[in-house]
């Protein structure tokens, strides 16, 4: 076993240190080392987006990034969305609009949608579909997900 690396980073606003092997992806570091199992493993090729997290505010497939590359970065995972028991408006609207069935893709969709709304609080439907193009859902389909993001945007803007 190779020597483990110490990684100092910030996860969901908390300064965090963890040890990982260089060959462990950020996804494996989050799930297996830190116990943050919200981010899901899907394809491991960057196609499905189930492992999407935010790195310095940008959506990234955590399966295609090494844990050691998280040094000095600000990582946001689905665990960082809710504030205590208060769900994030995106999570709330995904529930209300029935935007999930099996749920494996949901954390990734939530993080891609958050990245979009953080930069563009009032997106068009086309912009939402474009921003979510790197996330695949194989059971619910996309209309309800897109609707939930539109509704969450309204809530977040106080409309």
């Amino acid at each position, binding site marked *: 076993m190779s020597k483990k690396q110490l990684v100092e980073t910030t996860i969901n606003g908390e300064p965090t240190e963890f040890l990982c092997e260089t060959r462990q992806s950020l996804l494996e570091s989050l799930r297996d080392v830190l116990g943050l199992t919200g981010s899901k493993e899907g394809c491991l*090729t*960057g196609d499905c987006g189930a492992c999407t997290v935010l790195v310095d505010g*940008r*959506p990234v497939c955590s399966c*295609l990034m090494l844990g050691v590359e998280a040094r000095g970065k600000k990582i946001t995972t689905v665990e960082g969305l809710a504030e205590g028991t208060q769900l994030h408006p995106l999570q709330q609207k995904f529930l209300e609009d029935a935007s999930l069935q099996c749920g494996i893709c949901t954390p990734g969709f939530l993080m891609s949608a958050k990245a979009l709304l953080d930069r563009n609080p009032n997106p068009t439907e086309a912009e939402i579909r474009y921003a979510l193009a*790197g996330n695949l859902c194989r059971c619910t389909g996309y209309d309800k997900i897109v609707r939930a993001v539109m509704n969450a945007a309204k809530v977040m803007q106080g409309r």
Partner: protein
Amino acid sequence: MHEFSYEAPTTVDQAVKLLASDGDSARVICGGTDLLIQMRNAVRKPRLLVDVKGIPEMREISFDAKAGLKLGAAVPCIEIHESQVMHRYYPGLTEAAHLIGSLQIQSRASIGGNLCNSSPAADTSPALLAVGAIAKIVGPAGTREVPVEKFFTGPGTNVLQKGELVVQILIPPPAPHTADRYIRMIPRNEMDIAIVGAGACVTLDGDKVAAARIGLGAVAPTPILAPKAAEYLIGKKLDEKTAERAGELARESASPIDDMRGTAEYRRHVVGVLTKRALLGAAERARQN
């Protein structure tokens, strides 16, 4: 995935020393969107990964009206798309960078990585060929500049020697009334590998073509120029008819293969269609410059 060492140097010199230290088994990691998949599939087994994203000159976008563009090889595609300089002076290259994968991929993947992965179907390569881009390479023996048309040596291979890395992409400043355009054909609406990619850069003098370059992807063992088609256009008015003829000449430069995305015959046909459209699109933009 196999075991390997990881280093993140902050200068080009350190990166070159690291790369030269481990023979053929050190590899640069930038976005990792191709490399980590290749490593997971045991296609590549580097003993050392050299992460170059912390090297300032590899992350800069700087434009000077006389010197042209210096584009850091590690700039992620999304930053290229967000750059006003890139949209203004190299809209075709910018649209190529914004076509690669999803936003998740564009947040990591770079043009330098796309170049060095050297896929025949890389989206930014035809666009780089069209604008006359040059790879600035630094290695143990010093710095050299290689035009992109001389960079590739085959599918997945290039001229980089042991210890060398592409630090920046250099692009000449566009002459007045110059613009570029990149178009690709894929089996789906978004996020797939090109059946054909066509980049065109056109300089107009009045209503005549003063200079033109056409780059093609996914239709030969490497991305290629279509010089005959470009030469034909010089001194001519760029319209439906001449663009069509240039498309026919571009077909002659292509040597495509059959694969799951399309047959050689289909690819050759599409080369003509996309070359024509890319030329007309570039000319339309050039008229407004």
